[in-house]
């Protein structure tokens, strides 16, 4: 089965409102992670990549919540730069998010109206109506692999012939709900996160939105295709990764098979690299099991933090632009290798002749996902 074309994309993050602005900032090592003192979110100061509050209208003043506004701004930019018609009957909207409007639980008393307002299909429907999508939107909510899963869902819906175009958008906002949860797990680093580093000590959270538009039609495509992907489950633990990394490795090798590629065809890897002790250790083992330990790897969590439902999309888009510009972004926060199986961690801007990129992710619930992007 042939791949599916990427025709347009957008990253909307604290470091830029468009993909090209974001990529420019990444090349200059600009990170969105800063120290915040915001008692609405946390009693203690914390490091995270958050939007400047003045940039978006507060929930109470507007028909759309902040979460929905992020999605809409991202989709709007991506649609403008494509010839895809949202209102076409062969176009589907796919939304990726872990918690959507959950912050409403913090500010509103719970009742059936709020229940409906918190519901992800409600947000998806509002966003779909705004742009004139006529098909029922599809919502993917599968922990931190949601973004990659949404890309694979879009790819499969197009390959099956059911749709010709898929507008895939993801977002998560950082609320007290989310931050307190990771803090209760002691998973938050006291400083900016250090992916794959020997001194890594947890994640930094981040907020952001991103959109990828896929099409069966090469018109206006920019020469990069989604070639294949796969998802697996560790079947081991609901909040800790597999001890062996075998299941993420399985997702990687199935992805390569799906894309008709060998390990030696992969030019660089955009890893999940959340900077927890366990994730990075497992991911390094999985990448090694898949015979990819010499391939340049990066994690972008040092620039964006962990953007949850948007992560798979934001980081895929950066990888896609790395293919276009033949430039891999280094791993901010990394100094010294700290995994049992050392990887080839990219520490400086890397130029080359890149054709195929692998993106990986893992999440709570024991899920793993991988996807390959290729330059034609």
């Amino acid at each position: 089965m042939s791949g599916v074309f990427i025709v347009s994309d957008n990253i909307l993050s604290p470091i830029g409102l468009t993909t090209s602005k974001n990529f420019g900032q990444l090349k200059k090592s600009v990170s969105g992670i800063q120290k915040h003192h915001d008692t609405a979110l946390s009693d203690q100061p914390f490091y995270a990549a958050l939007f400047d509050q003045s940039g978006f209208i507060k929930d109470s003043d507007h028909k759309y919540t902040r979460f929905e506004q992020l999605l809409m701004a991202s989709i709007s930019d991506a649609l403008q730069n494509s010839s895809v018609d949202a209102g076409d009957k062969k176009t589907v909207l796919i939304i990726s998010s872990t918690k959507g409007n959950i912050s409403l639980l913090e500010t509103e008393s719970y009742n059936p109206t709020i229940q409906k307002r918190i519901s992800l299909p409600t947000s998806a429907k509002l966003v779909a109506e705004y742009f004139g999508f006529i098909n029922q939107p599809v919502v993917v909510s599968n922990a931190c692999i949601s973004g990659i899963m949404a890309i694979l869902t879009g790819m499969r819906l197009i390959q099956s012939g059911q749709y010709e175009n898929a507008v895939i958008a993801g977002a998560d906002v950082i609320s007290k709900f989310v931050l307190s949860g990771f803090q209760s797990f002691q998973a938050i680093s006291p400083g900016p996160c250090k992916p794959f580093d020997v001194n890594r000590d947890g994640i930094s959270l981040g907020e952001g939105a991103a959109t990828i538009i896929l099409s069966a039609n090469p018109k206006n495509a920019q020469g990069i295709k989604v070639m294949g992907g796969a998802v697996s489950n560790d079947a081991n633990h609901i909040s800790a990764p597999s001890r062996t990394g075998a299941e993420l490795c399985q997702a990687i090798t199935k992805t390569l098979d799906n894309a008709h590629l060998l390990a030696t065809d992969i030019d660089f890897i955009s890893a999940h690299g959340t900077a927890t002790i366990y994730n990075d250790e497992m991911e390094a083992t999985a990448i090694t099991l898949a015979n990819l330990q010499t391939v340049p790897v990066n994690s972008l969590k040092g620039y964006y933090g962990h953007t949850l439902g948007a992560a798979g999309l934001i980081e895929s888009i950066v990888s896609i632009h790395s293919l276009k510009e033949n430039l891999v972004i280094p791993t901010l926060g990394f100094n010294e290798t700290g995994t049992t199986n050392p990887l080839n961690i990219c520490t400086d801007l890397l130029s080359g002749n890149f054709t195929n990129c692998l993106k990986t992710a893992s999440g709570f619930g024991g899920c793993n996902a991988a996807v390959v992007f290729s330059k034609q």
Partner: protein
Amino acid sequence: MIAEKYITSGCLISNHTVYKNGELLFVNKDADVPGFLLSVYKHFDINYSRFYKMDNLSKLGWLASEILLKNSFQKENYRPEDIGLILSNANSSLDTDQKYMTSVKDIPSPLLFVYTLPNIVTGEICIRNNFKGEDAFFVFDSFNADFIENYVSSLLDNNILQACICGWVELLGDEYKAALFLVEKLKGNEAVSFTKEHMNKIFDDKKIN
């Protein structure tokens, strides 16, 4: 590449009743929701202490999968990576989200936080059964049999999976419903073809034949 696909087992838990393949297996109208779920666990003589740690949504989905698969699935005929789950609901993990939010006012509970994602149900079923294949959680306003039929069919037709548990697991307060379907490429005695019409009939608690 289009394979013949069958619903080889179906389980419906709703209205304080448990149906499997159209047959009423258990009813307990006298309990609240947590009490009902516990009575199902005890009635089917299940021995799995992890059950007590799960939130209500996971208990519901996990019980439905246990009953769905019991004496109806030859797991040994498949590799773990060939068995997957495609689940869906309307309110994600909102039932536990509310409980977690309550704990935040005092001491945020990591035990509750871990269940504030809908795909944890999937994780619990995978852990129990050693299912390692493709899994996904979708959120729809109401059960979307059309989407499930198309998506699961394409996974089986393209040999991404050889067997799939799919359906709906929804729980919020006192309102709940689990409808799970085991889909395989082989036709068993009670198997019906895997179509949205058949799924909707089972979902609406109607017998197929």
